[in-house]
Structure formats: structure tokens, C-alpha cells
């Protein structure tokens, strides 16, 4: 599964990168709920792990460029403290 953020050397617009993260995470949310009911589905567990790794790559890239998506220690901050500055989702 190719996506612009990991295969292109050109700068990907923020909105596009965020959308790719949202789409990938959607698949993972679906897999999570499914696996909660069918924990012995080997194929689904494998798919979950592959997609999870992809999501981490995308997230790291996004956060390095546009600031942390999480507080409480998930990702480092530039100075001054970025979390208060990055746009709030309902304003995007």
C-alpha cells in the first residue's frame, strides 16, 4: 500500500498527510473491534501489525513537521511548548 507521505520526496500538504493518517487509523479501529470478538483470526492480527507499523511511520513524519498529536509524553515538543499552539481539531 503506497501513500504520498512515505513514497514521495516532494513535500506533502498537511491536510493530505492528516487524511492518510485518518484513513489508516480507521482500518485499525475496525480491526481492533473485530479482533476483540475474533482474537484467533491470525490473518487479522497480522494485518493489524502491518498497518500499525505504517501508522507509526506516518504519525512520526507528521508530528516532526507539524507538531505533536499527543500530550502526556507520547512525542517530544519544540520550544516553546507546542501543544497549546497546534490547531485545535474543531477549528481545522
Amino acid at each position: 500500500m503506497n501513500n504520498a507521505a512515505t513514497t514521495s520526496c516532494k513535500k506533502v500538504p498537511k491536510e493530505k498527510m492528516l487524511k492518510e493518517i485518518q484513513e489508516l487509523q480507521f482500518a485499525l479501529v475496525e480491526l481492533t473491534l473485530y479482533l476483540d470478538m475474533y482474537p484467533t483470526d491470525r490473518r487479522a492480527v497480522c494485518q493489524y501489525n502491518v498497518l500499525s507499523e505504517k501508522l507509526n511511520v506516518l504519525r512520526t513524519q507528521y508530528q516532526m513537521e507539524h507538531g505533536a498529536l499527543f500530550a502526556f509524553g507520547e512525542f517530544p515538543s519544540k520550544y516553546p511548548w507546542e501543544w497549546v499552539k497546534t490547531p485545535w481539531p474543531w477549528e481545522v
Partner: protein
Amino acid sequence: MWIYEKKLQIPVHVEKCDLQMAKFLITQYGGPDGELSAALRYLNQRYTMPNERAKALLTDIGTEELAHLEIIATLVYKLVKDATPDEMKRAGLGGHYADHRTALFYSDAQGNPWTATYIQAKGEPIADLTEDIAAEEKARVTYENLIRLTDDRGIIDALTYLREREVVHSQRFREALFIVEEHNKNHKYDSNQYYNPMSGSEIFTNTNINPEDILR
């Protein structure tokens, strides 16, 4: 513990200011079949579920409902943010403005405040999961109603997504209920043992899976 991710689950846009629609939408924020009810119901019921899969499911769906709550809040926020008091009054939101200005608040489409009487936890899994299935169906219907009340494409896209999620949640709760009923019917079946309740056998026993087989 909850970690907050500073993004919406899906991108959300509205075409234009529509205060009347905001008034209707708020029912999925603080109304009886809305996302707050769903989130609090599931996150509360999970403590006394008798098997691990149900605890996981209620935790995860409850968490997703909080994300949906944020989507509804974003829709309402975008619809209302530039409204004047006069516009609010004309849209039937004069009372809301008096109490809250343009702030959001947990109420139904008539302004009745959210109440814990919207949810229940009987502490018995068949009653609780049956309520959860019903809750998802009611939420689905409410989204269908709301979709019919607007022609704003941005709002319709968001509501269509949320409606689909309710359908999926309902499916998962039905499966969870099945597991509990199986356990009750057949005491040799331990609901913490994993096997496919539908066929009685383990599914997908292929141990030679490569990631390339899955990603196309």
C-alpha cells in the same frame, strides 16, 4: 486511562452557517441516543462484564464514541460560531443563547439537559448487551433522521459515516451477546476461551501468513 489525539477521526466541513440544523444535531451530542450516552453507557458497563472480549469491546467502542462526540461538537461549533444573538433567536436558539451564548451544551434537540436516566447498567450481561444493541439501532435511526433534515453535503458526509459506525457497533454487540448466551446454554464453554462461536471451530488456522499476502 485515556490519551487524547489532537485530530478528528474524520475530516469535517460544513458548507454554510445553519443554526436550525445545529439545534437538531445537538441531540447526538447530549440527547438520549447520542454519543455521550453511548460513551458513558459502554465505559460504565464494561467493569462488570463477565468475559474479557466483552470488556475489551465495551472499552474500545466507548472510546470510539468519545471521538464521535467530538465530531458532533465540531459540526455544531462550525455551524454556530459566527451567529449573532438575533440569528440565534430566529432559529429557536434564543433560550440556548440566554443560558450558554454560543457554547455547546449537553442537551437534546429541545434543550432538555442530558441525564443519567438515558443509560443503564443492570450488571447482568444479557440485559446490558441487549440495551447496547438497542442503543446502536436508535443512534442509527437518529442519524437517518438528521440526514433527511439537511442538504449540506459536508454535514451529510459526516452523518453518513457516523451512521455506518453505529451499524458496525451493533454487529459487534450482537456477537458479544451470542457469546454470553452460548456460555449460559453450555457450561462446558468457557467464554474466556477463544473459538469462533458461529462455527464452533477456530477460524483462519493458516500459520503461513506473509504481510504481502494481505496488502495489495
